[in-house]
């Protein structure tokens, strides 16, 4: 056991990483290419991003497995590489020597009727498949950095993070599937919410409080939100979430919205502003993990880390 769950409950707030896809794009990931492809084609770039986050202060990093489920891979002709994509991504993350490696579980990209033609049971099988591969992924003992002398291979991942889900039903089947195939691995679950007049909802209409409660009661280790909204709005979401449920909360806002400039793409937000917005959450015991999503980079994590350090060593 990696002690991930224990660390989550013990605190202080676990610092996750920031955007991975956007960092790979900055390093030259081509137009329309899924980040997962670089796990096999440019692993040194993926490893470099992981190391940059560890150096910036991430306690836990996400493996580059967000799109590595069968439903997504088939669209890019990568179905037959599903085992290698997941295993290698987990290994690359483990080799970056963060305290913890979290396997990133993204959505199928399909939608249930009437919006699309997705099927929940087919999705469950996809998540079971990905979960099984990741749970079985191992790294050799020489990679383990902790003091204990390991004589046998170690699991490559310490937890799962079901992320960027816009339908609570999909999030639930992913959670159930992962708990089924990997009962000893904690599962974090984050939905993507939008701010509407009446509060925070997913695009499918799932409300914040009741959705988080459902996921918590279904066995998630922590529940929360990622993507789409910026740090200032995430602060409001945090307050509502804390008022709605007693579950441990995980949050990963975006760094503002992407804008096109003559020099390229720019995300509107300054890392210091991002960290300042989230600062008050660092001492809220039920906010167990914080990180960043689209547009965030190691600077954002460093800014958060500086505030954690400042609190600890005033």
């Amino acid at each position, binding site marked *: 056991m990696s002690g991930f769950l224990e660390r989550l409950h013990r605190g202080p707030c676990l610092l996750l990483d920031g955007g991975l896809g956007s960092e790979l794009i900055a390093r030259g990931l081509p137009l*329309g290419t899924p980040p997962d492809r670089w796990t096999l084609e440019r692993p040194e770039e993926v490893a470099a991003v992981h190391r940059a986050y560890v150096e910036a202060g991430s306690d836990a990093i996400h493996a580059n497995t967000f799109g590595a489920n069968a439903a997504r891979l088939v*669209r890019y002709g990568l179905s037959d590489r599903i085992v290698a994509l997941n295993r290698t991504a987990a290994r690359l993350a483990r080799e970056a020597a963060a305290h913890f490696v979290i396997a990133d579980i993204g959505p199928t990209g399909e939608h249930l009727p009437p919006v699309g033609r997705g099927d929940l049971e087919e999705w469950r099988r996809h998540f079971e498949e990905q979960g099984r591969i990741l749970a079985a992924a191992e790294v050799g003992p020489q990679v383990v950095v902790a003091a204990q002398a390991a004589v046998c291979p170690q699991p490559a991942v310490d937890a799962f993070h079901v992320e960027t889900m816009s339908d609570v039903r999909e999030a639930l089947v992913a959670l159930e599937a992962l708990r089924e195939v990997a009962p000893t691995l904690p599962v974090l679950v984050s939905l993507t919410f939008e701010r509407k007049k009446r509060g925070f909802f997913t695009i499918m209409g799932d409300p914040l409080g009741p959705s988080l409660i459902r996921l918590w009661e279904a066995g998630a280790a922590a529940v929360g939100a990622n993507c789409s909204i910026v740090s200032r709005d995430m602060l409001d979401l945090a307050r509502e979430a804390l008022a709605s449920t007693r579950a441990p909360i995980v949050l990963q806002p975006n760094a503002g919205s992407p804008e096109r400039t003559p020099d390229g793409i720019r995300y509107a937000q300054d890392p210091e502003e991002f960290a300042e917005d989230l600062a008050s959450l660092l001492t809220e015991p039920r906010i167990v993990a914080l990180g960043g999503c689209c547009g965030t980079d190691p600077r954002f994590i460093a800014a958060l880390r500086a505030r954690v350090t400042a609190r600890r060593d005033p």
Partner: protein
Amino acid sequence: MAQLEYADLAQAVIDGNAQEARRLARAWAESGRDPLQAVEHGFALGLRRVGELWEEGEYFLPELIQGAEAMKAALETLQPSLQATRGEQQKKGCVVIGTVQGDLHDMGKSLVATMLSAHGFEVHDLGSDVPIARFVEEARLHRADIIAASALLTTTMVAQRDLARAVRDAGLDGSPRVMIGGAPTTPEWAAEIGAQHAENALRAVAVAEALVS
């Protein structure tokens, strides 16, 4: 009495009840009353209300789609009598729509296609990852009034500029207009490339209607 019946038509769309919309449309057509009235004062009012509820944050994607599907069911049912009453020309305009090359996102684009169709446009949905040449060819083939292109990534947005240029260069009959959308797009970007911007599916309908009027 007639007012109450119009409200029933609208309600079927608001409720997203395609079966009921079809039933009411059929009853209306069989009664011999003007099908255009049923659309304009009944079903279409319901669809507008669905849009309002979405903007108010009361309705979400499933309800929006269901409303649009109910509307389309009504339109399909009324199609023969609409044709009989008004001849061929009931479509507001022809739209060719797709997500640009390199981009597989399609939900927003499909929603726009559904809403345009529900509002009386002839829509040809090319899907996602559509090369510019195909947008132009399909627009030529269908004599499109509007070419609508969605891009959900900052990295695929450039294709919208290339599309606008290609459409100008192609010199298509009727000079179709280009409408763009997608999360990273802005009115400024649209102006820069010589296209119209639609922030969401409802705005897309309004922009499209303005473009063909």
